[in-house]
């Protein structure tokens, strides 16, 4: 079973329900399970992560078994099964980016934020992790921040520090 660290009751907002209905309409009659991945993205964008309650709600909405949602949410890397910082900084750690300094930048990120990969800063603002190739290898090192997946290319320490400063001020 999934480890659940928070148990909040979950209700979908009217806007979210409308979005979900639009998503379901993209597939043929009876094939609404196809909506699962896109709906999980929407739910995560609204709630920040996918609690068991949130996933149960999605299962109920799509009229599928909760396990069908859990197994999908745990297979893909983009879904968070525990709460993250407000800003999850994801830096590419794959070969081509490492040729142009991604590893040093990850060390720098760890020092600057003062937390290890996957942990949340005490103020709840930041978490960070290495992710695999983001299809921007010619512009490395690169970093993305969900839920909008804003993208930053050709990073160095200075640009990374500036970015973190900007986010703190927001």
């Amino acid at each position, binding site marked *: 079973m999934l480890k659940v660290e928070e148990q909040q009751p979950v209700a979908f907002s009217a806007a979210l329900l409308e979005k979900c209905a639009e998503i379901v309409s993209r597939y043929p009659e009876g094939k609404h*399970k*196809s909506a699962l*991945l*896109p709906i*999980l993205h929407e739910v995560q964008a609204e709630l920040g992560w996918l609690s068991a309650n949130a996933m149960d709600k999605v299962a109920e909405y799509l009229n599928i078994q909760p396990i069908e949602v859990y197994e999908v949410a745990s*297979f893909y890397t*983009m*879904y968070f099964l525990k709460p993250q910082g407000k800003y999850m900084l994801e830096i590419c750690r794959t070969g081509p980016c490492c040729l142009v300094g991604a590893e040093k930048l990850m060390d720098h990120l760890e020092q600057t934020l003062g937390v290890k990969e996957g942990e949340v800063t005490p103020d709840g603002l930041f978490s960070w992790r290495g992710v695999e190739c983001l299809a921007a290898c*010619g512009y490395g090192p690169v970093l993305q921040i969900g839920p909008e997946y804003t993208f930053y290319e050709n990073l160095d320490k200075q640009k990374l520090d500036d970015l973190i400063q900007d986010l703190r001020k927001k």
Partner: protein
Amino acid sequence: MARKLLLEHINVPGINTLDVYRQKGGYRAVEKALKTLTPDEVVEEVKKSGLRGRGGAGFPTGMKWSFLAKPEGVPRYLVCNADESEPGTFKDRYLMTHIPHALIEGMIVSSFALGANTSYIYVRGEMMPQIRILERAIAEAKQAGFLGKNILGTGYDLELYVQPGGGAYICGEETALLESLEGKRGNPRIKPPFPAIAGLYGCPTVVNNVESIAATVPIINDGGEEYAKIGIGRSTGTKLISASGNLVRPGVYEIELGLPVEEFIYSDEYCGGIANGKRLKATVAGGSSVPVLPANLTLKLANGDPRLMSYESLSEGGFATGTMMGSGGFIAFDEDQCIVRNTWNFARFYHHESCGQCSPCREGTGWMEKVLHRIEYGHGKMSDIDLLVDVSKNIEGNTICPLGDAAAWPVASAIRHFRDEFEWHVKEPVKSLDTNYGLANYAEPIAKAAITE
């Protein structure tokens, strides 16, 4: 200047909008195909063009289309593979970001050819900005009557949707992609049946790469025969190459197939040489899954002739002295890069991305990562090097999908060509932690490198 078919207008301001795209001749292929050609004639043009799949396998697109089953009363699907996650590859993201209508136009023409009335573009979930760009472009095209019911009054209907993935390299494999599109884990299916018979929702389906689909636009505009005149031999047309690593100008380039590799790396029209005045040590020419080659074998074939950027020339010499075109992800390593470290990095990637269905892949990628890690960090034994070769051989060919091979080849080829560097790591565990084996003899005339194996 080489001919550009996909990126000709990439720098035109506003080319991402329908208006500007049309001013530059956009959507002519849709008009031509839907109004003057039958679906079979479109397939015929694509066959004549000699276009080969740009997603990695290089299978002829027209032939793939002609395998599509057409049972009466059963819907058929076209699914575009925009999952682009092969390390070193970033051309599809580039195309979708800057000239999204090229893909939309290609989807309309291709869907028409296949008789599909609903088509999906499966985009990796991390590309949210590109997903929004595509959705906007689709809305524009629909507004202008290129999508929806009775397109241009021809009676042909097409709905086009963008589907986000959830973050998993394996979903680039076409049957894993279909599973994912059905709302499931991305576990590749056992084949047969092939998607052409039973694909999405069990219906006949074609899965094609973004670039393959976009290439149908110039093929229809100019005719398949014109397209086939570009390139060399069975490598026809132009190809997008993603260039990364230690280059003066990394980026996406459209080349005419047949361009000498040396020209691609060193000429100012393309990558402009190795960054910071350093020398080339090695390349991975077609995305992380293809064999790595030392500099000398990158530039020349074993017989000393220049190597070209074409499917045939890149694979000339088999795995002993050649590599593969793959997805066109060209990664350059300068003299200061460590082959062992990069091999470990790639092994870690494949271990992380294995879906876990087959034990040789699930366990083997883990072992390779572990053994490479200990060699890189100074705890390796001489016997580890052969152990790696052994593990890679036991994965290769023994799995449901080609990810197993893709994980095995980089390791096997690194040891084939750079064994001395692996041995140095074992012999000099402390020194290798903060210094590098360097260029060694990897750029020397090839007679030497050719006799390994």
